[in-house]
C-alpha cells in the first residue's frame, strides 16, 4: 500500500517558507544520523543538539507555511507526505555526512550563511518570519562557532585531518552558490521586504569563510562553477534515500501517532 503525496499550493510566500523549512529539516535529519556514532561523546551531544535546534526551526516554519497556505496541510504532512521532487531544500544540506570533516565543512558553510541570513531576516516585514528569525539567529551563532572551531582544529591538525578537510571543502564548494541564488518567485518578496536578498550577504559570508579557512591552513577552490536545483525540486540521489528513512513510519502506518 502506498500513501498519496499531498499537493501544495506554492504561492511565493508558501514556497519561500517551505524552502527554509526543508533546509532546516534535512540538515537536522543529517545531523541526527550521527547520534550514537560521533567520534566522541561531547560531539554526539553537540550534533544532536544542533539537529534539535534545526528541527525546532523547521516545525515553526512548516506550521507557518500551513497557516499561509490555508488548506488542511500541517507540519507533519509537509515533512512526511511530500516526495523528493516536492522538497525545496538546498543541495548542500542533503549531501551525505561522509566523515566527520565533511559533516563539519557542510555545517560550517551553511551555519555561516544561516547566521547572516537570520540576523537580516529579523527585519522582515513579515512578523512571523521575523520572530522565527529572532529565535534562530541565537541558535545559529552557536552553530557557527562550533563548526569554525572544528575547521581550524581539523585543518591545522594532523596531515590526515588536513587532507580530509581540504577534500571536503573541494567536494562541497560547488553547492555553496545555491544559498545566494534568487529566482522570480523570491524577487517579489525581496521587493516587498518580506525576504532579504541573499546576494547581499555573500561578501560577508565569503569574508568569514575565507578567514577561518585560512586560519585552518586550508584553501578555498578557485572554481566558481556552482550546482543548483534543490530550490526547484531537482535533487541529488541522496535525498530519496534520506526521505525513505525519514518517512518510513508514516508511509508504512499512515496517520500513526505516539
Amino acid at each position, binding site marked *: 500500500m502506498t500513501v498519496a503525496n499531498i499537493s501544495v499550493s506554492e504561492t511565493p510566500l508558501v514556497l519561500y517558507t517551505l524552502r527554509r523549512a526543508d533546509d532546516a529539516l534535512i540538515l537536522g535529519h543529517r545531523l541526527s544520523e550521527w547520534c550514537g556514532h560521533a567520534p566522541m561523546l561531547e560531539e554526539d*551531544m*553537540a550534533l*544532536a543538539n544542533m539537529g*534539535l535546534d534545526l*528541527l*525546532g526551526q523547521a*516545525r515553526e516554519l512548516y506550521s507557518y507555511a500551513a497557516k499561509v497556505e490555508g488548506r488542511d496541510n500541517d507540519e507533519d504532512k509537509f515533512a512526511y507526505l511530500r516526495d523528493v521532487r516536492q522538497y525545496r531544500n538546498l543541495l548542500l544540506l542533503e549531501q551525505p555526512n561522509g566523515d566527520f570533516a565533511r559533516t563539519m565543512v557542510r555545517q560550517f558553510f551553511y551555519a555561516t550563511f544561516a547566521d547572516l541570513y537570520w540576523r537580516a531576516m529579523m527585519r522582515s516585514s513579515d*512578523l512571523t518570519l521575523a520572530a*522565527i528569525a529572532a529565535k534562530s539567529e541565537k541558535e545559529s551563532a552557536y552553530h557557527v*562557532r562550533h563548526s569554525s572551531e572544528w575547521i581550524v582544529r581539523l585543518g591545522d591538525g594532523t596531515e590526515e585531518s588536513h587532507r580530509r578537510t581540504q577534500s571536503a571543502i573541494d567536494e562541497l564548494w560547488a553547492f555553496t552558490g545555491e544559498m545566494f541564488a534568487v529566482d522570480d518567485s523570491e524577487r517579489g518578496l525581496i521587493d516587498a521586504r518580506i525576504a532579504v536578498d541573499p546576494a547581499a550577504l555573500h561578501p560577508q559570508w565569503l569574508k568569514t569563510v575565507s578567514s577561518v579557512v585560512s586560519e585552518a591552513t586550508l584553501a578555498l577552490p578557485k572554481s566558481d562553477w556552482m550546482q543548483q536545483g534543490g530550490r526547484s525540486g531537482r535533487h541529488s540521489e541522496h535525498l530519496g534515500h534520506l526521505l525513505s528513512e525519514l518517512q518510513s513510519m508514516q508511509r508504512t502506518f499512515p496517520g500513526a501517532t505516539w
Partner: protein
Amino acid sequence: MVTAVLSDTDLRRRAWEVAAQVVDPEIPVLTIADLGVLRDVRVRDGRVEVAITPTYSGCPAMNMIALEIELALERAGIGRPTIRTVLSPAWTTDWMSEDGRNKLRAYGIAPPQASSSRRALFGEQQVSCPQCGSGNTELLSEFGSTSCKALWRCKACREPFDYFKCH
C-alpha cells in the same frame, strides 16, 4: 459544593499564581516563572489563556510544560486553559530572575552570565564553578545534556558541571 465566582482580575491573578508554580521538567528547581518562559495570563470569556515562549526552537520540554500547566490549572479548579506559544520577543536568559539564578547555582548549575559575548567567534568566557566557586574552569563542550546547557569542568575541584548558556 461551594462555587466561588471570581472576577476576571482575581481569576487571572490566581491562574498566574498556579501556572507560575509549574517547574521545568529538565531543571526541576526552576519554575517557568523563574525562567521567564511564562509570559502572560489572560482571561477571555471566562476562559484562561496562558502564553508561554520556548527557550530554544527545538526544546522538547515545551510540550511537557504546556501539559503541566493544563494539569495544574485543572487541579486548582480553574479549568483547562488555552495554551498559546509566542515567539516574539525571543526568549533570553536576561529574563531569568535573580532568585532563579541562585536556585540554579545551589542545584549545581552555573547560571548564565549577562556579560558573556555570544557573538565572539572564538570568544573566551569566565564561568565560576557552582561547587567550589573557583574561576579556574574550562569549557568541555558548548552543547550539554539539554539545549540550554554547556558542559564545563572545574580545574580546582576537578568536578564537571553544567553551565546555563547565555541566550
